C-alpha cells in the first residue's frame, strides 16, 4: 500500500482545489440567479445535483482522451483532470445551495440596508457579507462530496500510484486485491474527512 499520508494529502489537495475552483464560478452564478431571479437556471442546477459521478467521468474522458476535442492538452490521467471533474461535479451543489442563501439574504438584508439609506451597492455588500457563513457551509458540503468521489478519479485519474491515486481509488484497488485491512484503514480516514467537513458545514450553516 502506498504511504497513507501521501494519499491523504493528495486527496485533500485535489478536493480542496476542486471546491475552490467550483466556488470561483459557482458563487457568481448563484449571485446572478439570486439577484436577477433566474428561476429556470436555478432549477437546472438543482436537477444536476444528483448526477452520477461516473457520467461526468465518462464525459470528461471523452473530452480529454487523445482523439477528443481537448486531447492536445494532455490532461488525461493527471491530478488536474480529477480536479476539473470534481469541480464540475460539485458546481450544481454550490450553485443550488448558495443561490437560496443569497436570495434570502438579498431579500432580508438588502431591504434592511435600503431602509437605512444605503446605496444599491452598499445594500448588496451587506447582503453578501451576511450570507458568507451559509456560503462557506455550502463549500464544506461540496468538499465532503468531492473527497469521497470514485467515478471521476478512476476514469480520468487512472489511479496512478504516487500521482493520481486518491483515498477512494486506493480503497477500490485494495478491495480488488483482497487487502481488506488496508481498505478499511483508508476508509476510516476518508470517513473522518468527509464527516469532519459535513460537521463544519452544519456548524457554519447554523450560524448563518
Amino acid at each position, binding site marked *: 500500500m502506498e504511504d497513507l499520508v501521501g494519499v491523504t494529502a493528495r486527496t485533500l489537495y485535489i478536493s480542496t482545489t476542486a471546491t475552490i475552483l467550483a466556488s470561483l464560478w459557482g458563487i457568481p452564478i448563484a449571485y446572478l440567479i439570486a439577484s436577477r431571479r433566474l428561476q429556470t437556471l436555478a432549477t437546472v442546477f438543482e436537477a444536476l445535483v444528483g448526477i452520477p459521478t461516473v457520467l461526468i467521468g465518462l464525459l470528461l474522458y471523452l473530452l480529454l482522451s487523445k482523439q477528443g476535442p481537448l486531447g492536445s492538452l494532455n490532461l488525461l490521467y493527471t491530478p488536474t483532470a480529477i480536479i476539473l471533474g470534481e469541480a464540475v461535479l460539485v458546481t450544481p451543489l454550490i450553485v443550488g445551495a448558495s443561490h437560496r442563501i443569497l436570495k434570502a439574504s438579498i431579500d432580508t438584508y438588502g431591504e*434592511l440596508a435600503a*431602509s*437605512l*439609506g444605503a446605496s444599491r451597492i452598499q*445594500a448588496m455588500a451587506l447582503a453578501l457579507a451576511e450570507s458568507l457563513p451559509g456560503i462557506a457551509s455550502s463549500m464544506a458540503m461540496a468538499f465532503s462530496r468531492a473527497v469521497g468521489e470514485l467515478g471521476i478519479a478512476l476514469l480520468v485519474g487512472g489511479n496512478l500510484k504516487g500521482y493520481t491515486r486518491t483515498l477512494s481509488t486506493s480503497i477500490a484497488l485494495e478491495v480488488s486485491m483482497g487487502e481488506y485491512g488496508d481498505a478499511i484503514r483508508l476508509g476510516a480516514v476518508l470517513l473522518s474527512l468527509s464527516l469532519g467537513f459535513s460537521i463544519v458545514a452544519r456548524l457554519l450553516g447554523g450560524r448563518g
Partner: protein
Amino acid sequence: MIEARKVWLRYTPSQEWVLRDASLTLAPGRIVALMGPNGSGKTSMLKVLAGLIKPGRGEVLYEGSDIWSMDESRRLQARRAAVYVSEKPVMVRGTVMDNLLLGLRLRGAEPRQARDALDRVVEGLGLKGMLDMDARRLSAGQAQMVSIARALVLKPRYLLLDEPFSHLDRARRRLLAELLEELRGEGVGIAIAGHEELYTLELADSVAWIESGRVAMQEPGSVLI
C-alpha cells in the same frame, strides 16, 4: 413633508392591486396612524412612502419633488430624510452596538457624528445593559426596540414605524410612546402602522384607515372608541 399621491401598487403584473388610488401625507411634527386589518396594505404603503418600492402609478413627493423622477443618487439623498422600520426586526451578525451603528456605517458616516443621538436612544429606550449582547439572541421585544433605536440613531426627519408596539411589553410601550412624543415635539414626522391599538391611537394626530389598499383619512376624535 412626504406625500404619497394617488398611488397604485402591485408586486407582480398578474396580482391584484395592493394599493388603489391611495394617498397619505406625513407632515413634520405630526404623528399619523395607519390602521387596517392584516393584508390591507399598511406595510406596502409605508414602503412606498419610504421610497423602497416604486408604485405602478401615482407620485411620491419629498418636500414637493417626485422621488421617482429623480436620478438614483438624488433619490437616495432625498430618501435619507426618512427611515422605515420593518415589522420583522432583522439583526445583522454582531452585537447590539454593531446593529445600532449599522445605518451610519452604510451611509459612510462617522459614529462620532451621532454620539448624541446614540446616547439618547440608548438611554431613552433602555438599551444600556444590552449593548454588548449578541444581536441574534435577543427576544422579539428586545430586537424590536433595537431596530427602532437603529433608525433613530440616524436622526431622520421622518420615521415610518411598521407595527412598532407588536412585541413590546407594557413598560417598553411606555418608553417608546414617550420618546415618540418627544420627537414629535422636535418636529419629526412619524407614521405608525398598526391594528386597533390604543397606544397608537392615543399618540396620533390623525388616523388613516386602510382597507383592501384604499385609504380613507379621518380625524382622531371621530374614531376614538
